[in-house]
């Protein structure tokens, strides 16, 4: 079930009503599990068995870890969980990739391997919930958490529908206790949840989908586009993926608030970052911190020499790239980001955290901060070209190289800019989308101290309601002209 559908709106209203009528914690959790499996089965009911088996394995491993004392046995249990989860992920997500590469390798040395590929459908959200369940067993193994004996509570943690298919990837230490406590309805939290959901709908439908249409119209035929047109498409893609993914997180977090559950923040105005390391502290925070805690730190983290620290960072980013998809372009994108964070990472000094105000505390940024923000954004955009190439099955390295070459070679080409103006003059919907984008960047800048841009506590109620009404009808008008699935469902 996709968030931006009538189905979801009706489903949410029903589950919300039943949840608060139920009152008792056990009943509420049971309802959430049933609703979450229904939500997941809306795509394909067969996927539910995968999620259930992954949940049961980790639930059992957790219980086993509770009672097992010996180190070797505990390790064996942990290994069982990791092998099961990564096996599941590897089979569904990476089998085709490895089979294709093995086939190419054997063909190159004169052997022929046929029938290696299977027609596998990637179950929606598998990368998210396997990481979430895996973190549970790792935390229990490390003694940070005592495994729960209540299967319903545990299933709630794994399958909680708002964040099931595209995160935020929650840790059991944070989310599970919320399901084991009674919840009381809080007006302010629920109202803020509604605001955040509305903002998510606006970002996804008005911005991400329309920006996606601009990107497709230019990137689908890069040979015919000029450098400035490709540069515009690249900037649009940067905001498409941001608005798309952060919209999902906003709707997820807002929905969870309606049930009295707090999910972690997943985006903190990443495009106002002043270096790539800060960007990764603000972008997909739940995944970045997952890799930090379960890969980077176990490898030695930052408490090692500089060469080892650089190695740790690159390995972490390579794995993060591979997490996004089974393609060499994702691996290259991960490696490039790993290299990109090194200059800041290897320098001593205090790094900005996601909770810090991005771009400085002033109303306007200083010239230096603005320069650093623009430079970081430009680097990020260049890296997104690789990312975008990886999401298109038949896109080749040559295509990514062509885009880079055109953007740089025609950076000062008057003919290229004329073609861009002509295109914008002819396509009113593109101009309109860019106006919305400019407005969005401005709103994000003004609201960057807040959790989300629609936190307007100081506005009088009538003004807030007028604004919400405007957003709803603009979203229905502008946001339904093109439609698209959430991009991160494919990861």
């Amino acid at each position: 079930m996709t968030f931006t559908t009538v189905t979801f709106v009706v489903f949410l209203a029903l589950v919300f009503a039943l949840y608060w009528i139920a009152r008792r914690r056990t009943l509420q959790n049971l309802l959430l599990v049933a609703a979450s499996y229904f939500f997941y089965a809306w795509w394909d009911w067969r996927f539910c068995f995968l999620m259930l088996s992954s949940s049961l394995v980790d639930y059992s491993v957790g219980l086993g870890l509770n009672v097992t004392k010996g180190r070797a046995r505990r390790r064996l249990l942990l290994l069982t969980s990791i092998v099961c989860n990564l096996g599941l992920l590897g089979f569904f997500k990476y089998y085709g990739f490895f089979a294709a590469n093995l086939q190419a390798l054997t063909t190159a040395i004169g052997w022929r391997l046929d029938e290696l590929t299977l027609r596998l459908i990637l179950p929606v959200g598998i990368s998210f919930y396997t990481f979430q369940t895996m973190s549970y067993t790792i935390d229990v193994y490390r003694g940070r958490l005592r495994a729960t004996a209540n299967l319903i509570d545990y299933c709630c943690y794994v399958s909680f529908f708002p964040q099931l298919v595209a995160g935020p990837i929650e840790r059991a230490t944070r989310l599970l206790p919320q399901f084991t406590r009674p919840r009381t309805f809080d007006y302010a939290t629920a109202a803020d949840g509604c605001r955040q959901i509305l903002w998510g709908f606006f970002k996804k439908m008005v911005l991400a989908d329309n920006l996606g249409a601009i990107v497709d119209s230019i990137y689908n035929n890069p040979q015919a586009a000029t450098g400035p047109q490709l540069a515009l498409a690249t900037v649009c893609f940067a905001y498409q993926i941001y608005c798309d993914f952060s919209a999902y997180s906003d709707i997820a977090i807002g929905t969870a608030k309606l049930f009295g559950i707090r999910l972690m923040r997943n985006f903190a105005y990443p495009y106002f970052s002043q270096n790539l390391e800060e960007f990764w502290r603000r972008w997909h925070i739940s995944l970045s911190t997952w890799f930090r805690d379960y890969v980077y730190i176990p490898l030695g983290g930052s408490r090692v020499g500089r060469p080892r620290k650089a190695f740790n960072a690159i390995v972490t980013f390579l794995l993060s790239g591979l997490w996004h998809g089974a393609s060499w372009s994702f691996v290259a994108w991960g490696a490039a980001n790993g290299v990109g964070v090194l200059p800041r990472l290897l320098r001593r000094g205090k790094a900005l955290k996601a909770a810090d105000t991005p771009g400085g505390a002033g109303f306007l940024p200083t010239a230096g901060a603005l320069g650093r923000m623009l430079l970081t954004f430009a680097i990020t955009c260049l890296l997104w070209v690789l990312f975008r190439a990886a999401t298109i099955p038949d896109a080749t390295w040559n295509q990514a190289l062509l885009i880079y070459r055109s953007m740089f070679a025609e950076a000062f080409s008057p003919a290229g800019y004329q073609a861009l103006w002509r295109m914008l003059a002819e396509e009113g919907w593109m101009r309109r989308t860019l106006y919305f984008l400019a407005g969005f960047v401005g709103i994000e800048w003004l609201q960057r101290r807040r959790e989300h841009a629609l936190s307007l506590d100081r506005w009088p109620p009538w003004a807030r309601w007028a604004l919400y009404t405007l957003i709803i009808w603009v979203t229905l008008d502008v946001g339904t002209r093109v439609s698209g699935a959430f991009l991160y469902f494919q990861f």
Partner: protein
Amino acid sequence: MKRFVRNLGLFAAIQAAIGAAIFSSIRPDDDHYAAATIDKNRLLDEAPPPRVIFVGGSSVAFSTDCPTVERRMPPYHAVNMGLMALLGVEYMLGEVAGRVRQGDIVIISLEYEQFVQDQSSAMIVRVLEHRPANLAYFSPKRLGDLGMGYIGAAVRRGLRGIRGKRDRSEPPYVRSGFNECGDLVMHRTMPPPEFAPPTPLRLLPGSQGQIDRTIDRLNAFGRLSRRGGASAFYAHPAVMQSYYDRSRQAVEHIDAELRRRLGFPVLNTPRSACLPRQMFFNSNYHPGEQGALKRTNDLVDALRAKLGPAAMP
């Protein structure tokens, strides 16, 4: 909680009032292309059996000549339900399913794009404006999943109405452009406009799923038709030879999947359904008069061959 429900209810009521004001400003154009759904549905209800019912998108509307069918296959009455590809397969099949009668023949012909991506657009709103009962041709799942787009389209229509704008469809895309059997014929007397060469068909990552879903829907329709005493057939659409040549891999894959999984006969092959460029009016799927006559005669020949002389009255 009470305060939350009260405020949410009040807010929803305000939005409903705004919505009612917007939607009441929609001014349907009685001669709009989509309004032909009224005549087509009436025809389907009133034409006596046995009938040959053509199902599909605009390619069926353009490429079928029902008088030829009736002349060559007496006593069959021909009904052309083809309207728009963008209404989607579920709609097209849902419109006819359950309304077939003993002895009817249903020929389904879908644009190849239906097998690559789910086709659905705001045009559905136009059809519903003229015949709200057509809502029954959608499953609740589809309405729920795509309803946001339909509401958005209705909002845009209403806002245009508020601004005093009326949008009329241009000939031949008008209700009065159809003949009494549901064939679009107005273009047959119009000079063909210049048009760009068609975009070749490419299979997308999710296409196999879409192919499987579409064939499942066709099979479900076939079963329902058999239960009603009717026979279903599939026919590849009439397309330009150049389109076929450039889309051959994808098109042949669709044909192979249909032949492997479809529960009723396929009357032609993608190659045999091709027509020369000069037989088309304004796009790859829209033949002119000559093209429609050739296509219809080919289909009748194929159908007679499949049914055998004994089956023909």
